[in-house]
């Protein structure tokens, strides 16, 4: 505080009268220390997310939750269970399958959703898959365009969903940092980042016209650390690929590429057993692993705290060109 401001620290005292003559209530404050009465930030995030999920269920005719099988989806799914407990989740899950997801992901998906008794829909761009679309042949941009963006838009349209939850977080990527919690999409599924609806307080505007839709991001304000913290506290099941284990990988420079697909072939000596794990789950040819010994959730957290690179640094697709995530998002990608 400066000398000047210091002389008048309580302007409220000087100026207690508001313009319509009523006394301004003093701002009650307390020392900057945690009080047991205050909710911790994990509880605050949980409360906010549940509020958002309930608003969507109440305001839309036909919402769906995009389920990508990853850690964020797992947290979002748990929050949906909590939002409606003791009633069941009142909307289905939709998984957009590119055909290139890890086998362990699909096994986990089918087992876990069956266990929970939630309704799971799977959508694939069968034409593109039948035509043999893959990132090596098409390049990652076009491959994502067909197998993810196009499939997603087709799937949403086929079922007539007017709201779709996504597990994206603002701390993941800088164009995501710009997105609203209720993100409006025109009838072509496109995002216009330069003309977003204002979004004040927790009042979400879910009104849309024919063919338009809203993408909803209940995890907007969670960080990667918050997600793991919550998974740990809530004991949320996750795909074992997140945990370190000896795995056979294609080792090229700093990159560790999973050998799941036949077209991912190493040169002699490039295929090695490495103790590693995945930090974010995507399509196997485009998601690099990291060397790691973290085989429990607490160890993942310990590792994360020391981490100097972002979680998407190992995703090949985000770095094709400057602002590639934004471009994909504008076209309708999550």
């Amino acid at each position: 505080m400066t000398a000047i401001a210091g002389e008048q620290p309580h302007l409220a005292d000087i100026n207690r009268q508001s313009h319509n003559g009523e006394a301004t209530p003093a701002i009650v404050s307390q020392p900057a220390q945690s009080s047991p009465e205050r909710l911790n930030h994990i509880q605050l995030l949980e409360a906010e997310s549940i509020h958002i999920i309930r608003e969507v269920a109440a305001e839309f005719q036909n919402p769906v939750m995009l389920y990508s099988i990853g850690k964020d989806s797992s947290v979002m799914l748990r929050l949906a269970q909590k939002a409606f407990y003791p009633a069941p989740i009142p909307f289905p899950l939709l998984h957009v399958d590119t055909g290139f997801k890890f086998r362990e992901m699909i096994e986990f998906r089918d087992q876990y959703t069956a266990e929970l008794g939630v309704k799971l829909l799977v959508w694939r761009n069968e034409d593109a898959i039948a035509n043999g679309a893959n990132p090596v042949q098409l390049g990652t941009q076009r491959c994502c365009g067909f197998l993810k963006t196009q499939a997603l838009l087709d799937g949403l349209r086929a079922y007539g969903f007017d709201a779709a939850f996504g597990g994206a977080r603002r701390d993941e990527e800088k164009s995501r940092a710009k997105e609203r919690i209720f993100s409006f999409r025109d009838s072509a599924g496109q995002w216009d980042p330069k003309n977003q609806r204002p979004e004040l307080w927790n009042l979400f505007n879910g009104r849309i016209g024919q063919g338009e839709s809203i993408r909803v991001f209940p995890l907007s304000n969670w960080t990667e650390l918050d997600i793991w913290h919550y998974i740990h506290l809530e004991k949320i099941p996750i795909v074992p690929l997140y945990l370190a284990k000896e795995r056979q990988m294609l080792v090229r420079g700093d990159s560790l590429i999973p050998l799941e697909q036949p077209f991912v072939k190493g040169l002699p000596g490039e295929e090695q057993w490495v103790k590693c794990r995945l930090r974010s789950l995507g399509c196997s040819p485009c998601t690099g692993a990291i060397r790691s010994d973290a085989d429990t959730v607490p160890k993942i957290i310990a590792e994360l705290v020391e981490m100097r690179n972002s979680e998407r640094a190992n995703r090949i697709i985000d770095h094709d060109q400057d602002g590639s995530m934004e471009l994909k998002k504008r076209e309708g990608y999550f």
Partner: protein
Amino acid sequence: MAQGDNTPTAVLEQDEADLRIEERLAAERAKDLLRFSTAGSVDDGKSTLIGRLLYDSRNVYDDHVRAVTHNAEIDFAQLTDGLRAEREQGITIDVAYRFFSTAKRKFIIADTPGHEQYTRNMATGASTADVAIVLVDARKGILDQTRRHACIASLLGIPTVIAAINKMDLVGFSKEIFDQHSRALVELAKHLEIPDLHVVPVSALAGDNVVRRSERTPWYGGKSLLELLETVPLAIERSNAGLRFPVQRVLRPHQDFRGFAGQVNAGIVRPGDEVVALPSGFRTRVRTIATWDGELDEARVPQSVVLTLEDETDLSRGDMIAAADAPPHKTRHFDATVVWMQNKPLRPGASYFLKHTSHTVRARVVGIRSRIDVEHLAQNSTNELGLNDIGEVTIETSRPLLADRYRENRTTGSFILIDQEDNTTAGAGMIRSIADAGEGTGEQQAIHGILDVGNRAALAAELERRLLAEGALVLRTRAAVSNALVTIARLGAVVLVESDDNQPVMFTAVHGADPAPHELAAEQLDEILDELERLGAIPNNGDENDNGLGI
């Protein structure tokens, strides 16, 4: 974890490592969360300051830094200016949300645009902030846009403002210049009734007084910006205020459970508490606070829970459970400060959808009382509000709101106006003063009639419930429309007729000599209620108090 005698030591060590993390996480959870937003005129250095703050506090990933480093120089603003258009134009267009933490606190930053055209995005970022950092370019001092932003921050009820006098490197770290701006800021804060102001000299570009105190401002004895952020007090929750629990959704998984899902907006709720269900006014007690994690002994702001009540109670989305001894106002008329966010100007008489808590109603702007002249911070009379204008308006809603004044409760005191044609968010409002609807709605002479809903059973049930809550006399039947029903309606009832027909909703007013059916071009509950009210079929409660507004 139970360990057997023959447990290998390696496993034991691992568990100790996990335990250390456990402690660390507990410490992490104990940290407070502070939300702050930036404000100020275009190019004052807001994004640069946030980039610098993140970088110097070691809260950015290396790959993110590499992406914004050109010729060995970091462009700090680009750490938050994440849109292509922003990087091309060198300005911020929309809010960027960033997250970081220090040993003391966790922070959510909203870095907002300074450009006047994007004021609504600044308001978006500021609406959830506890602290606003207002930037001032040391070379330029306070500009109109600085005043506009400070004014919005004050209206939004942000208690603490940190004014950062930036680009001190360009004025030779001059104490005189800093003092001069500080005095002007103190004046401004006084005028805007900002209770807690701190002023700090910084260079966002060079990092002076951002994270660490600078040797280049030896005359400044105060804290660095980060130290201020780590120590400013957090406003305490309104836990001693009356309970406000807007119902978001009714949960009825089976016969034996009927719960009301919502978020505690004020007060504390405990099983056994006496509450009132609004708008019906029915009093009952809280039976349980049900959650996935088990039943709770209490729930506080802003927990999202499910309440069950002792008695079968008439409540649905948009209604509220409130403290029986301190209920909110039930009102259709109030004065509010509005920030206008649409190109189409706001004019008296215009109608919008109004969203307030979990309730969306139709609203008419009855009058515009004044507009704030940002240059002089004076209130001028006007007959319209243009884009980015701030003004005082009087609003009338089709259904009563359960509201408090904004200064008492940010949630039950705020609303947004939505354009009825293109559904965009047209404005944001803060309720300043309220004209109560009063208790007696039955005294009014309303004209009644017959409402034929065809085969819409769910709609009929909901209409019946809502009309009853409005104090209307309702008869719901499957009998065909007959003279008997007309007579009953003439006696002062709304007769709800159901049938197996899939026909439009029809309304027959019975006050004339020759009752003629009138097709309601409405399918939705609220629209039908609005239409009925317009036709005079149900009481327009609140009109009798249409005086003495804006005390």
